């Protein structure tokens, strides 16, 4: 019999729905359930939480997700791999270990992949080990974090050591899936074509419902069934690197040529060189074939050698952002919103607020992209004001001034919403592979005491 494995996607982003993962854990007949929960934005937010609390910085939904899937995964011998460790994989590992005790599942082994966090190492070398450091040197004093996109190697090591649950921090999204294939089929780390095929399947899987009909529907043009019960994808992968993308028949959505075509190009630049830490995938020879309803066969992937340098995401403090919105309605709504904007611009001058970046947009008119049409007949319009300042004091005056428009602005303003937050921005750089030291730690009672 030809060996094959079944991998399910349990989450395509940090805040993703939980029930589709539970359905996959219970009915998916899975070997692996993978939760991909980190984006460029998410790791920055996680670093911010860790700065406030040394024991925090892992995914905020970690406990909730594991509580729901631990029992079915243990029962069906499905191993779990996730980057929900975010900015603090070790703390996440300890949380999982505590949950296993609570669930009476301490026979399960938890592996934590460490080494993506290179911030201390960069500090001690004055950021000199990075390539292209010109931009970095300018913001050096404001940097709070640096995380490398790791590849598959330590996930594979954890699997070889019988880990049932593997927690990582920043890892290439594709690596979370590819590691299972390389481990199960014993693919060599320089078998570039196999790795290229694996990355293609991983890339289709890593955003969850985006390949099963999510982020896709356009009524009358692209209709998708039962979006309220959208299912997450399952990949069936064979030893030769070919595979199928499918979903549970009881779930909503679709897996079709059209969903696979859209997702394979998602966040891709040159489709002949999709770069990951494990290899460079070439999607230009891929073949998709809808062999039956909700089952698409993937073949023809190829690959090229992995890059020498790894990508690093560097988080830095980027001032404070204040934002507020207010609505106007009825005849003349747009003119009154324009007047409100004019008043705000003057108030910013009078109060001498220093904004590095400031936007005043009209929601329903031009908040998504520029538009110079006339809007005399709008029934309602919402003014959105947002600005970034270096000081919290300046930033927070902006929402305050919008709220003051209730009694000091044009007639009939309503529905003010406002907020302020510190902005952590991300810049990317590259680090030579050999500078990154990765390792796996297994969480157990003995680690508990330290």
């Amino acid at each position: 019999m030809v060996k094959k494995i079944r991998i399910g996607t349990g989450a395509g982003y940090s805040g993703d729905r939980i029930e589709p993962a539970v359905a996959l854990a219970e009915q998916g007949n899975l070997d692996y359930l993978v939760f991909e929960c980190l984006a460029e934005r998410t790791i920055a937010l996680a670093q911010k939480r860790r700065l406030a609390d040394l024991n925090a910085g892992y995914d905020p939904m970690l406990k909730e997700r594991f509580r729901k899937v631990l029992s079915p995964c243990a029962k069906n011998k499905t191993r779990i791999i996730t980057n929900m460790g975010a900015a603090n994989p070790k703390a996440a590992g300890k949380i999982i270990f505590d949950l296993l005790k609570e669930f009476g599942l301490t026979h399960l082994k938890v592996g934590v992949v460490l080494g993506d966090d290179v911030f201390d190492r960069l500090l001690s070398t004055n950021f000199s080990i990075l390539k292209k450091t010109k931009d970095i040197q300018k913001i050096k004093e404001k940097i709070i974090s640096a995380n490398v996109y790791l590849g598959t190697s330590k996930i594979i090591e954890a699997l070889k050591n019988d880990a049932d649950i593997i927690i990582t921090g920043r890892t290439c999204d594709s690596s979370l899936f590819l590691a299972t294939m390389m481990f199960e089929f014993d693919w060599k780390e320089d078998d570039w074509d196999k790795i290229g095929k694996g990355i293609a399947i991983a890339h289709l899987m890593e955003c969850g419902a985006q390949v099963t009909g999510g982020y896709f529907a356009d009524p009358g043009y692209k209709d998708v069934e039962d979006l309220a019960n959208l299912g997450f994808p399952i990949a069936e992968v064979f030893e030769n690197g070919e595979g199928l993308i499918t979903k549970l028949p009881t779930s909503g959505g679709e897996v079709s040529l059209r969903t696979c075509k859209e997702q394979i190009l998602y966040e891709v630049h040159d489709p002949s060189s999709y770069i990951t830490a494990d290899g460079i995938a070439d999607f230009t020879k891929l073949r998709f074939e809808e062999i039956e309803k909700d089952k698409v066969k993937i073949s023809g992937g190829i690959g090229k050698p992995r890059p020498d340098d790894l990508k690093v995401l560097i988080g830095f403090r980027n001032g404070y952002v204040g934002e507020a919105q207010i609505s106007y309605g009825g005849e003349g709504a747009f003119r009154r919103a324009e007047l409100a904007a004019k008043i705000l611009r003057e108030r910013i001058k009078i109060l001498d607020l220093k904004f590095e970046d400031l936007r005043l947009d009209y929601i329903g008119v031009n908040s998504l992209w520029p538009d110079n049409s006339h809007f005399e007949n709008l029934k309602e319009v919402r003014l959105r004001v947002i600005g970034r300042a270096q000081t919290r004091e300046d930033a927070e005056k902006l929402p305050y001034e919008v709220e003051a428009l209730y009694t000091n602005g044009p007639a009939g303003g309503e529905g003010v919403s406002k907020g302020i937050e510190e902005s952590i921005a991300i810049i990317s750089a590259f680090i030579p592979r050999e500078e990154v030291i990765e390792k796996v730690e297994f969480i157990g009672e003995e680690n508990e005491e330290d």
Partner: protein
Amino acid sequence: MKRISLREIAYARSGDKGNVLSIAVIPYNEKDYDLLKEKLTLKVVREQFKGIVKGQIKRYDLENLKAFNFVFYDALSGGVTSSLRLDKHGKTLSSKLLGMKIEI
């Protein structure tokens, strides 16, 4: 000759990485691939993104999937972690592209 929205014959998906936006454009009917190859020139696409995209635009043709991938540099006001735009990821910009008029 008829003037239609690109949306009538193709669909699209936006993605972002840092300050770079990518949009996949795929004809509903594979037969329209060659037509789109001719119509979706960098010049007309740049016109559609006037005031939004500041950098270079590239088009990649995927004969195997009968699809196109457009890549727009310096297109997202610094990218998702620093942009003040309501559409930080540029997700709505696929719809902007589909609103482009073409003559067939």
